[in-house]
């Protein structure tokens, strides 16, 4: 259960090695140790993540999860709930991909779409069913500002995030009557392994800063947050910039 001051007792992280996802778990754990289920493909990075969380006093369980194995999702999510209620579920897996390759190579394009959109929808359905039955809980879905308006430099990734963003925004409403709270998070440029070597965009941020925003959103039951917060204004303006000007912007 999430208590009166917003401490969850258990967190499920789908994308168990995601830097931002792990930062969210650590931010919760720094206030109160919790039970953590890390769902990801087994790897040494996953083991390291487990060790790091255990040092914070968490009880950590690994759960093999492959975003591309769609037919296993329902069973995997089912397993995640066998140890008791899941108070916060974080959907943090995703691929950035190389945009030029992605829009010219069909396999790359389809893989991006499968992981970022189809798999996100698939786990969203399974999580929705479980959380609805539970009558409480928070679902955090990592979208991206890239989904708000497609840019030439990043539109394949952007299109997948636009789709998953719309799905989870709708899920927010669908699950509301059941007492389940959904937060869609739209980070901008975050310094992680995924963005290593890329030129940082303005307003770039860190996983810890994003995590602080997510924790606050869960505690105050916000349904849509940007990280950092000023992106809300920036994107609101960018969405309405005429195309002729937009394509000339250095973004």
């Amino acid at each position, binding site marked *: *259960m999430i208590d009166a001051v917003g401490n969850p007792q258990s967190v499920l992280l789908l994308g168990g090695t995601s830097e931002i996802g792990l930062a969210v778990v650590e931010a919760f754990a720094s206030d109160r140790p919790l039970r953590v289920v890390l769902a990801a493909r087994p790897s040494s990075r996953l083991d390291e993540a487990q060790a790091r969380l255990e040092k914070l006093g968490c009880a950590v369980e690994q759960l093999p999860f492959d975003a591309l194995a769609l037919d296993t999702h329902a069973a995997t999510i089912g397993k995640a709930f066998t140890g008791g209620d899941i108070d916060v579920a974080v959907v943090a897996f995703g691929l950035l991909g190389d945009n030029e390759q992605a829009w010219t190579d069909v396999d790359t394009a389809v893989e991006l779409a499968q992981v970022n959109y189809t798999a996100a929808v698939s786990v969203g359905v399974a999580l929705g069913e479980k959380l609805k*039955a539970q009558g409480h809980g928070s679902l955090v879905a990592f979208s991206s500002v890239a989904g708000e308006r497609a840019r030439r430099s990043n539109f394949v990734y952007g299109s997948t995030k636009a789709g998953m963003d719309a799905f989870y925004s709708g899920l927010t409403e669908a699950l509301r009557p059941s*007492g389940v709270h959904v937060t869609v998070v739209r980070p901008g440029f975050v310094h992680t392994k995924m963005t290593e070597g890329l030129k940082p965009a303005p307003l770039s941020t860190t996983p810890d800063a994003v995590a602080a925003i997510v924790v606050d959103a869960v505690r105050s039951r916000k349904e849509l947050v940007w990280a950092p917060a000023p992106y809300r204004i920036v994107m609101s303006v960018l969405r309405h910039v005429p195309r002729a000007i937009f394509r000339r912007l250095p973004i």
Partner: protein
Amino acid sequence: MSNTSLRGWGRTAPTTARVTTPRTVDEVAAAVTSAGPRGVIARGLGRSYGDPAQNAGGTVLDMTGMAAIHSVDADSGRVVVDAGVSLDTLMRRALPFGLWLPVLPGTRQVTIGGAIGADIHGKAHHVVGSFGNHVRALTLVTADGTTHELTPDGDGSELFWATVGGMGLTGVVVRAELALHHVETAYFTVDTEQIDNLADLMERQTQDDELYAETVSWFDAVTTGPHFGRGILMRANHATLAELPPKLRANPLKFDAPQLLTVPDIFPPGLLNSFTAKIFSEAWYRKSPTKFGAIQNITQFLHPLDVIGEWNRGYGPRGFLQYQFVVPLDRGDVIRTVLERMTAAGQVSALNVLKRFGEGNRAPLSFPKPGWTLCVDIPVGPGLNALCNELDAIVLDAGGRHYLAKESRTTPEAIRRGYPRLDEWRKVRDAADPQGVFASDMSRRLELSS
């Protein structure tokens, strides 16, 4: 039956359950036996601050649909009532017969079922004990849908005492027989003393406590320096007819309990801050100069907050929590430490109540035990979690414990430490409900049921 979002009086941590309002014992039994995998819990008037009357994803029985007063015996003082009857309703019915509820908490908006489930206490605890001490029999619907007549000393006394203070997790109380006290009037003779620091306040409260039927003190947690913890000690006895002024003698059992206003749900967070708390504390302290033998009615003495409906809305949408604990009598120093930590953390509490408990009862999960109990209200905001964790350690290290009716954020470990008889209670509970049909957000959060 409808999906309803439920919160406690502290207005935190909402969850959704299917709420149904049974009207008969049979309907209670039917709802219990047809409960789904998330189980069922009874709810009264929702005055618990945290989550004991919520059941996310499961069923919640709104017991206020069962609110009949079956009998009032003026001679013996025995009353038989449904669990959904409020203390307020019962008092209004019983007072004309010269009968008084011996245990009254800070509000009368509590059902009989809730009063038993939380084994509530009042300002008279040092003399009369807690609510369970005055229950002569109760009717419990258990997980298999059967009804049990339980008494404190007869067959099933174990289940009786597991139900007292058992937070609704042994079954659904549907009816109870209570032993009320006889009084000549509905008024109190009140001695009020303004005392200008905490040490003297506690010292004074230790003296002559047994000469009074009701004692409590309120103190100021905002003023620092030599007047730290200055407060008002209020002690009272039931007024006899002869003590009443002639004007009140005509109708000595009049129930004088108006509700003047209801707070609208419009307050922003942060309205209670160090500035407003200072004003409130100053006013509250000044309004009660030392005075002996004043005649006060029930609202003036016992329930000043009942004058304002839904006063919890004043804390704004983020809600608040009430932190109440008891520590042994020889650890009165903890009271001061807790207040100092709160002040150091910049947390503001305007309603601070201090009381000395008398002996506890046989119920394994009953909160009161001989000692000092302190209760503070704190709005939810940054830093509260860290402060409460710190206070937990201080309280538990001193051999203290939390009050489950107020609890909303501690850990299962803290409850295990504070309630050494938890396992004994669990054994009785599990025997009555092997499948774990009775469950609440609190029972999951604090791992009360095994």
